[in-house]
């Protein structure tokens, strides 16, 4: 904590500025003071509007739960919720399976590490929309993938990949991969090398070193990545709309439809469900991994 930031925090709050000579005793308060502006910002510009939006779900026309009750026997909602959760689980598994080895490679590689990082980050910095369109070009009936497989004689006629759930899954896994790789790489990097040498010295094979040392120690990163990817994929809109099949409506697509049709109470209900789902997932992770102690403290270690 630099002096500059401390005195900034003091200046922002007159009573504290008055007790400046005693600023060392305010040490424990400083983080809270520093957190005050962003917290106030989030309250004013995020929490309040979200609450206002959610209140539509129960206040239209007067206090009522009828909109939520209606969801219970709405087959469209059930199908869309299932679509969304299934997609999020699949995409999370896909990014984990593909991302973990890349994270390992990123940490182990020395000279190539900047290049690998660049390859991960370049697409990350590209708009989701552009990448979704790129997948349309790649996966199309006459796209690169099909043409290549036809040319190699692997296929007799083009496969239908674009406009199917598979296309959505492929594109979303690609788009969300960095969110899985980076937290895992972060925990892997912090594993003490002497532990690995000790394991090897005690006769462990590389595989059992990985299984018994590296993997358990990297779990906080896995948890963080899984949480990020899962929660982000719950809200996907453009990608399923562009490359997905005709029946692959996700919750955020349904919300957008309902806003468009001015059914704002219904849209607010759906948003509440989406938000609650995300919160439950975060809560579960907090319970299992310990949010403060595990997943999110990795970089502080």
């Amino acid at each position, binding site marked *: 904590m630099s002096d500059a930031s401390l005195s900034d925090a003091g200046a922002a709050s007159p009573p504290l500025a008055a007790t400046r000579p005693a600023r060392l005793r305010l040490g424990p308060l400083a983080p809270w003071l520093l957190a005050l502006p962003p917290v106030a910002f989030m309250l004013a510009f995020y929490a309040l509007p979200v609450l206002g939006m959610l209140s539509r779900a129960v206040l239209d026309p007067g206090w009522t739960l009828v909109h939520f009750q209606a969801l219970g026997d709405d*087959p*469209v909602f059930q*199908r*869309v919720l299932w679509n969304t959760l299934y997609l999020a689980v699949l995409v999370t598994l896909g990014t984990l399976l593909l991302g973990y080895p890349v994270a390992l490679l990123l940490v182990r590689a020395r000279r190539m590490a900047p290049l690998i990082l660049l390859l991960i980050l370049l697409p990350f910095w590209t*708009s*989701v*929309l*552009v990448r979704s*369109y*790129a997948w*349309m*070009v790649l996966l*199309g*009936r*006459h*796209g690169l993938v099909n043409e290549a497989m036809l040319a190699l004689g692997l296929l007799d006629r083009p496969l*239908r990949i*674009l*406009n199917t759930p598979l296309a959505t899954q492929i594109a979303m896994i690609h*788009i*969300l991969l960095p969110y899985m790789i980076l937290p895992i790489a972060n925990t892997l990097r912090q594993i003490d090398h002497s532990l690995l040498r000790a394991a090897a010295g005690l006769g462990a094979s590389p595989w059992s070193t990985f299984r018994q040392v590296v993997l358990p120690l990297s779990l906080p990163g896995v948890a963080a990545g899984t949480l990020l990817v899962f929660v*982000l*994929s719950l*809200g*996907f*809109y*453009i*990608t399923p*709309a*562009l490359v997905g*099949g*005709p*029946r692959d*409506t996700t919750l*955020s*697509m*349904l919300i*957008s*439809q309902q*806003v*468009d*049709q*001015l*059914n704002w109470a219904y849209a607010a209900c759906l948003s509440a469900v989406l938000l609650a789902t995300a919160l439950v997932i975060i809560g579960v992770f907090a319970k299992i991994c310990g949010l403060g102690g595990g997943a999110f403290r990795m970089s502080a270690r």
Partner: protein
Amino acid sequence: MTVPKDRARVQLPPTTTIGRRAALGLAAGLAAPFLLPGRAEAQAALPDVTNVPDILKGRGEVRVATFGGTMQETQRLAYFEPFERLCGIQVRDVSGSDSGKVRAMVETKNVEWDLCQLSRGTVLNLQKRGDYFEPVDYDIVDGGVESQYRFEYGLEMLVWAQVMAYRTDAFKGAVPVGWKDFWDTRKFGGERALGGHTSGQTPELEFALLAAGVPADKIYPINVDTAFASYDKIKSEVVKWWDTGALPVQMLTDREVTMTSVWNGRMAALQAAGVPAAISWSQGLLKRDCWAVPKGARNAANAMKFIAFSTMAVPQARVSLQIPYGFVNSKSVEYVPAERLAILPSAPEIKSQLVPYDYGWWVDNRDAVLARFNRWLLT
């Protein structure tokens, strides 16, 4: 983390975000390069607005929300520039016109737009729920604007068609005509795309009825059961229920589908790019966009002047000369060459093949139909 919440609907790959339902935006990214050799040249080729009635002159500004894209560029050339020059009112145009935003603005009394591009259906739907728009000042509107385009809370200013389009290289020279052929996947093979029910669109129940043999003049009031029964027959062949005008033309270009419904303006760009595709005007739907003034708009008087100006003969012609969409002022005919007139949806021999979209029926039935469409598609 800016990734997935993005809600943009219509975007063409490398260029700008086009606002929602950029009917026009469409022609946008694609058409502009082909239709407009250059801004200066295009301007030179357009008829000039030479004088305006004094009553349209004023000062200050008018904030106009459009559907964005290149259509906004077209509108700038056609309307905004001459209006600023001749009427002395500055135009501040933004993209992203949307009924939800109008509702929010009016309800919070924080109206940021003086004028917006919408459809008659959208305006009537919103007006059904409360008082969201100012009545149009028809005292200053040009007499050449036909009565069919006028309604209390808006004035239509752009005529377009939702039509069938197909790959000319897909059927060995056979030419599909009408929706019966579109539904006939044996005679005309290949997959299909049809318009969906999002982004302010209504599902194309009219096409389903025409495919089932209902005569064009008996479509409205729509028999919804018959329409969905007809939809059942094509459902498995439809790979996409598109919600943005960019998609169907993209899918035709990429040979993902052999036939689809499209907005006619987008096809000009496709054909100019050399894609072997054609429009079948027969049994298309004739639709319109309109101007409407949100209730409580600060510059409502200027907005009324702009509405009157943009529907005068010359400004209307200036749009049709840039993008193949029709005009609402009968006097615009004098400013559009015959060969251009012949490809507009308002051309008599084309218009007679089209079915006028019944905004009134859809205002009464949209919510029920959209809910049923969702059920039909998803469960």
